[in-house]
Every structure is written in structure tokens, then in C-alpha cells.
């Protein structure tokens, strides 16, 4: 995959279709790739990488990048294309300035899962036939790819690219039986007290680092209410548990109907708070109340929360 992507990026850079490439550059370890913009063939040849650890959704960077001079090439996984489309729908990204290559996705690895298996001192990770050989200074271990896969990928909603200029690899289908609402159903089955206890337990770990907000492709306000001293609810740290809840509830409400369920929020949370469950609850409710809707699927679709129909459910 990496070789094909690099080859195509070089071609598009050389023939002038684009003047920059948004991809990933290599890290210190086998798993810590950083999103990077490449401006020359030499840079691509030296630093461009792509592997199972390139989980970051690059769509949000295009808000800024698509406003720069020239066209930029971006590589998007199926789930990233939903975010990209949603940003187009919200007029946040200038489509003409982006050349999208959709890349076939087999799921991404969550390195925390490897670490949770007790793997430490990781020096190499070799993928072969569905198995990762994780090399560490304490010895090697074989791990099944499925056991290392990120939570969001285990319940991937779609292998289909909803927007692209060209594809590398095959396009897939929407996954109907992705089971992504299983945990939401479990939470729904709880008593209100149990559910409250569940969320208090999870949210009490929050350190208000804002990683979830800043990474979220649906959180694109120029000035977030939580940063705005005039909003009356600006906060850098929650003063009490009420404020702790409020940050998350307001954020979940604000992205409701626009959240594509890309899973970035849960991926980046340093405290492993399952934020995606809040958003999935909203998605599930909207599907049930207003009919099936997937944010980002079609940039021209009428969003359920932005549309009024006389038959709409009142509460």
C-alpha cells in the first residue's frame, strides 16, 4: 500500500495536479506516525509512511490546507471520507483545492491494546498473514491482527468511500451488521441510576485536555464556547462534577446530527473515556425518531435536526 501511495503522490506532484501531499511521516517507534504535509518528491521518498498505525483522520486539516495556494492531495480511509463530505456540506473545506485518494482499509491498530497485553519496550512490529510479530526488548510475541484492532474498526460502519477523485485498492460496502449500537443498547437497558453511575465513573477521569474537541472534524467553531470568556460557560478545567458533565453533554449535543461516528474522539482520549457512546446514542435515537440517516454520506442530504416535518416526533 505504502509503495503504491507514494508512487501516485510523486506522479501527481510531478505532473502538477497538486503542489502538496497530506500524509504521514515516520516516527521513533513502529507505531507513532505523525500527519505531515510533503512538498517535494525528495521529502516523500525520505519520510512518507503508511501502515496499520496511521489511524488519524486527516479530513480536519483540510479546513486550513484547502485555503492555501494550490491543490493538496490527501489520502482518506472510508470513514474519513464521511468526515470530509460533512465538512463539504458545512462549507468548511474548499473541495476544488483538494485531490482525494480513497484508500482501501482493513482496519487500524490500537497500540494501546498491544500495551495492555503487557507488551512494552516495543522496537518493531512486523505484519504477516493476519499476525503481528511484536518485537520488544523483553522478547517477541505474536498477536492476531483482530486482537490488536482499534475498537472503532471492530464495529466499522462502512468500507465504502463516499467521496474520492481516485481509489487505491478496492471500494467496499456499507456494513449493515456492524454492531456499533450494542453497547448503547446495554446502557439503555440500565436503570437511570446505573447509567448515571456509569457516566460519572467514566467522565470523572477527564482531565479536560480538549483532545477530543480539537481532533473532532465536527468541532470546527472558530471560537469554542468553552474558550470564550463572554459565553458565560468558559472553562479550562471543570470546577465540579456538574461542569465536567456539562462539557461533554454540550459537545455531544453540538455535534449531534453532524457527527459521522469517525471515532477520533475516543481514539485520542488519554484517559480512555468511551466518548463515542454518547454520540452513538444520539445517532441511534435520530435513526429511530427521524429515519435512517448517516452524516457525511451525502453532502446534499437534509440533516434531520435541520429539517422540520409536521409529522416529527415532539419528544
Amino acid at each position, binding site marked *: 500500500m505504502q509503495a503504491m501511495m507514494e508512487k501516485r503522490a510523486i506522479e501527481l506532484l510531478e505532473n502538477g495536479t497538486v503542489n502538496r501531499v497530506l500524509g504521514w511521516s515516520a*516516527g*521513533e*517507534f513502529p507505531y*507513532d*506516525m*505523525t*500527519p*505531515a*504535509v510533503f512538498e517535494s518528491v525528495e521529502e516523500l521518498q525520505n519520510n512518507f509512511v503508511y501502515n496499520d498505525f496511521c489511524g*488519524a483522520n486527516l479530513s*480536519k*486539516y483540510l479546513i486550513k490546507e484547502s485555503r492555501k495556494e494550490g491543490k493538496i492531495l490527501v489520502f482518506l480511509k472510508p470513514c474519513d471520507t464521511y468526515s470530509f463530505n460533512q465538512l463539504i456540506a458545512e462549507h468548511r473545506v474548499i473541495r476544488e483545492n483538494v485531490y482525494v485518494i480513497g484508500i482501501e482499509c482493513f482496519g487500524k491498530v490500537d497500540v494501546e491494546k498491544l500495551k*495492555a497485553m503487557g507488551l*512494552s*519496550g*516495543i*522496537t518493531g512490529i512486523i505484519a504477516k498473514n493476519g499476525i503481528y510479530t511484536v518485537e*520488544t*526488548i*523483553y522478547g517477541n510475541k505474536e498477536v492476531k491482527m483482530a486482537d490488536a484492532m482499534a475498537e472503532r474498526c471492530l464495529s466499522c460502519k462502512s468500507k465504502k468511500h463516499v467521496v474520492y477523485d481516485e481509489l487505491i485498492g478496492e471500494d467496499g460496502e456499507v456494513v449493515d451488521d456492524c454492531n456499533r449500537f450494542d453497547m448503547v443498547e446495554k446502557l439503555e437497558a440500565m436503570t437511570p441510576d446505573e447509567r448515571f453511575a456509569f457516566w460519572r*465513573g467514566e467522565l470523572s*477521569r477527564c*482531565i*479536560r*485536555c*480538549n*483532545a477530543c*474537541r*480539537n*481532533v473532532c472534524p465536527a468541532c470546527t467553531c472558530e471560537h469554542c464556547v468553552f*474558550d470564550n*470568556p463572554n459565553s458565560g460557560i468558559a*472553562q*479550562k*478545567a*471543570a*470546577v465540579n462534577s456538574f461542569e465536567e458533565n456539562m462539557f461533554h453533554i454540550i459537545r455531544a449535543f453540538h455535534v449531534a446530527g453532524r457527527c459521522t461516528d469517525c471515532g*477520533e474522539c475516543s*481514539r*485520542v482520549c*488519554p*484517559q*480512555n473515556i468511551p466518548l463515542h457512546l454518547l454520540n452513538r446514542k444520539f445517532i441511534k435515537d435520530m435513526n429511530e425518531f427521524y429515519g435512517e440517516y448517516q452524516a457525511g454520506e451525502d453532502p446534499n442530504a437534509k440533516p434531520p435536526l435541520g429539517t422540520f416535518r409536521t409529522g416529527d416526533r415532539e419528544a
Partner: protein
Amino acid sequence: MKKLTNLNAFFAAIAAKQALYLPVDNSVGKAEYKKWQDGTVYSSALNTARSAKDFFFPQTENLMEFKMEGKKIDVIDTREECEDFVIFGVRACDAASFDILDRVYLVDPVDSYYKNRREHGTVVTLACNRPAETCFCGAFGIDAGNPLGDVTAWKVEDGYVLRANTEKGEALLACVADLLTDTDDAAVKKEQEKLRAIMAKLPLANLTTDGVGEGLTKELFDRPEWAALSESCIGCGTCTFVCPTCQCYDIRDFDTGHGIQRFRCWDSCMYSDFTKMAHGNPRVSQLERFRQRFMHKLVYFPDNNDGIFGCVGCGRCLASCPISMNIVKVMKTLAKGGNQ
């Protein structure tokens, strides 16, 4: 040096006298400091997800309160003498971070809130035996096999070896004296030997501070590499909040409806409103904010503190940055090339 074979009895004996905090696995399998009570299981994790600085410099802390009645404003001093407490299992990196925080909070003007906690806390450190790939304490001269603190503990084959380093440490060991026996340092030496061999194999074992440090503001400030390094930083502040040495805070007022609670909370130089003044933020771009974080740790802090770096190599920011950008990548990039 003292030998301890019954760790749980040691915990119970301390907890009978004062609050004891130690790393415990939480529901998502990460370690966090929890108060010991009967049945608490000590975590085997290398380190806690949040650093130990929380004990002395908590994320939010009340400074004072104002009560308003008509035109009368009462200013209430909310400071209280903190109770004695013990933290067990602090690693060498975090223990070194306390020295860095002391250099900020215990110099004139002394921060009485911080000092209060520092004076009442006894730190028991634990030498590492299974460092992770993200560890690079060695780059800053920190010995993971000989951590500081009031008491140092080593896990050895058949128990623990303890050494008191301060008066507070002596006092702590004295109150559990019946659980301890005298021992020499042979077992400790053996563990340190093993650790040294492991440390040498770590991927960041050869990281040095060459190219950064005291007096290099002019050389490093305008380096063109800052642009690429900061390019994909999302300005979230995760790196600052997980960092044991990050020390910046903001002071804010919370309207309780019948008064004002003035509190301080952690702040991050990565934020757009950090040190915002009437004219706006002095650092208008993410490049400048990003550069501030690393220049502070690698140049400005050493400049003002006898060359001591403001990073202890704990590796938390390496493990938690959403885009995997971090101080190691910055150090390596700055060390490369350059036009000095």
C-alpha cells in the same frame, strides 16, 4: 538499608496513621493513584497515566472566596493546613519532576498552597525494573534505578529493600520498624545491574541533550524546522496536562450565585488564550505556542535553573499526543543540522 517482605502489612501500617496513595489499575486498565484501603491491589504498571504532580499541584484548587452582602464584600481565606499523606510507588522521573516544580513554586514568592502540600507529603519512590520504549529519563541524567524522594524502594527477588533519604523518610520507616530488618545493598546492586542492561537496549537509550539547553535561545528560536514540527499539532494541550513538569496555571472566578470562588487551574501554552492580555495573545500562531512549550523545557528553564532541563523523560506525552508529535522528535530535529 532495610528489608521488607510483607508489602501489604507495610501499607496497612502506614494507612493506619496517615492517608496512603498508590497506583491502582482503573476500569480501563490504566494505573491511577488511589487511596489505600484494605483489599486495594497495588498496580504492576510501570507508571500512572496522570503524573504524580496532582498531589502537590492539583488541576484545580480554590485560592480564596468572596462573599457579597449588599455592599459588603468578605474575603475568605480558604487555606487549611493539609493533612499528612504518603505517596508510594513514584518513579524516578516523577520524583525528579518535584524538584522542577519546587524550583518554580518554592522560590520567592513562595506559593503557600504548594508548600503546604509539599511539607505534608512523604514520597516513597520505587526503582524501575521494566522501562517502556517511551522512557528517556537517562537523557536528563535521571537514574531510574536510584530514584530520589523521602524513601527509595527497590523490588528485589524476595521482597523490597528500602532506604530513607530524608528526615521525613526516617520518620516513616521508624513507624513501621517492626516490619523491617537490616540488610546490605547487594540485592539492590543486582537489580540496578539488570536495569542498566535493559536501559541500554531501549530505543531512546542514545538520546542526548546535544543541540538544546542553556543559552541557545538565539540559535534555536528561528530554526525553520519549527514549521514542520508544529504543522499538525492540534493545540489540544494533552501533552501539557499529562506532563509531570508542566507548571502553568490560570486564575479564574466561579460565580456560585452568592459569591465568588477564586480558583486556579492548569493552563497550557498550547492554547490560543494562554497569557491572553488586553491586546490579545502574544503568541498568535500554533507554531509560536508549540515552540514555547519546547523552548521552555529545553532552553528557557535550563537558562534560569543552572542548566537543569524542564523535562524528565517520563514519556507520557509520547504515548498520549493524538498526532504523535513530541519532545523527542523536537530534540532530534533540533540536534540535526542547524546553522550554529
